[in-house]
């Protein structure tokens, strides 16, 4: 990931530190590390992905070795270890979804966006991924947008509306 070496992250803002502190406060004073999952999630919301430098900043804040933060980033599926498109679409194709057109939805998006799963559109707007169980099996076809918003019962028509809507909302411009 060559982009990592070039990344230059700003210092943590006061607002970010406040968000971190709310997480840290949930745990015993000597267990700041417990907040690492939430802090990395917050960083991903703010920066789109987790660079090595971001890991270092989180490590410093929580008083843990950077490698221990890296272990977390690389273990959990939803942390972006490289930049992704403005909208990350995770389509569930696990068995219950496979039985209800989950894979069809993924294929439709591949065709619609002109990319294969795992890729990002050239304009930087969409990253398409296959995902494991989202825990919304009765909602299939279902996908998770930017790790935070789940959209359900996504027929091909709805998928088209979603893509068009997000494109329009972004002014058609790259991220």
């Amino acid at each position: 990931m060559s982009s990592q070496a070039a990344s230059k992250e700003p210092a943590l803002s006061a607002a970010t530190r406040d968000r971190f502190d709310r997480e840290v406060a949930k745990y015993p004073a000597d267990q700041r590390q417990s907040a690492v999952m939430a802090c990395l999630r917050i960083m991903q919301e703010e920066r789109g992905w987790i660079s090595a430098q971001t890991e270092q900043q989180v490590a410093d804040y929580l008083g843990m070795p950077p490698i221990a933060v890296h272990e977390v980033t690389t273990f959990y599926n939803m942390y972006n270890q490289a930049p992704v498109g403005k909208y990350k679409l995770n389509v569930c194709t696990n068995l219950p979804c496979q039985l209800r057109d989950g894979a069809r939805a993924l294929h439709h998006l591949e065709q619609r966006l002109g990319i294969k799963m795992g890729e990002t559109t050239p304009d930087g707007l969409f990253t398409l991924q296959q995902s494991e169980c989202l825990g919304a099996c009765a909602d299939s076809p279902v996908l998770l947008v930017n790790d935070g918003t789940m959209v359900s019962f996504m027929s091909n028509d709805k998928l088209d509306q979603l893509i068009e809507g997000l494109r329009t909302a972004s002014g058609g411009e790259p991220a």
Partner: protein
Amino acid sequence: MNAQQVLAQFQATGVQTCFHDRHIDPQIYKDLDGTNWRLADYEQRGGYKALRKVLGLVGGERMDPAAVTQTVKDSALRGRGGAGFPTGLKWSFMPKNYAGQKYLVCNSDEGEPGTCKDRDILQFNPHIVIEGMIIAAYAMGITVGYNYIHGEILQTYHRFEEALQEARAAGLLGDRILGTDFSFQLHAVHGWGAYICGEETALLESVEGKKGQPRYKPPFPASFGLYGKPTTINNTETFAAVPWIINNGAQAYLEVGKPNNGGTKIYSVSGDVELPGNYEVPMGTPFAKLLELAGGVRKGRTLKAVIPGGSSSPVLPADIMMGCTMDYDSIAKAGSMLGSGAVIVMDDSRSMPESLRRLSYFYMHESCGQCTPCREGTGWLWRVVDRICNGHGKQSDMDLLDSVADNIMGRTICALGDAAAMPVRAMLKHFRHEFEAMIQRPNLPAADGKQPVAAGARG
């Protein structure tokens, strides 16, 4: 429209999965409509009455903590997360006179394929989980708790945090609850995409800010849990069942359902049915009735097979399944597990090797890598099933699958390995002919006439 408004158009409303009139005598999903999740609504439905009863603020003397545990024991409530372990018995394992900190943990890391019941509980009735946890904490003398919520439902995590704030502001959580000398702090924690964290000790590792790799048991969490302290972990639905039991009594709970299988259970019905969704029905409801509630098999097709308790439970053919009632004992007797109550329905157009291929890919993907039999074995299982599906199977592959499954079963720290091996064995047991047919006739087309999903091959 901005992006959030665009997305808002497509979000689930819960009407299809939760607020329908196809539950039978619901206790947890009762009277929900999607808007009435707040504290005031919950109290209007009789919420926090059980807590007040336990604390002696209504209806008589304060209950002895041991009596609360005994009530739960007598109710025959069994863990709703998958294992079906008696909840009251689990509570009684917690040391009574332990001087240090003890912890209570709720396992809302709902990622077992097919399962989507806890999301609707937390989203539409969060206070019932909070109340259940406070009562459990009181019963075991615990002052700090965490609810670990599946990272994929971050919206629900935020909803739960909001409900916690409401409860704190009303004096139902925190120091000196409702003016008594009992204090309990409860916090929400989230995962971030790791199926293994549904395993209780992996979950504890994750709360500690580490990779979610399971621990050896023993020691069990009741003696060495979160931060090495005594800890009790129950599933979301288990906690949600507690207020009803306290309000109505153990005997009443037991009488809903059947002996040794008390209460209602929420089944997540997915796959080839007309109306997929969550169905809360008494334990012991016939499977045929549940299928009927879910609108029957889709497009009038014929039932072929059912995975009755989440992807880790062995598949059962239609004729066996139609003879089962939905409770721990009946499903176990039929050779499978009630598990998390996730009922995955497959009709006669489905190819079993295709279904197994997708499941095997999942277990390979989610193996934490700690134990060699699981790390390597899940990969073997997927590759062999995949090549059978791709028309490159060998005659010896049936024995190979059996041997790999054999070498995983019982040889790993946690149950993920078993969960990967069991579906293989059940598929071979009940649908061996489909695998053999694929091996003997290479390039067999998928049952729907379309190209099979080469999920793993491209992932």
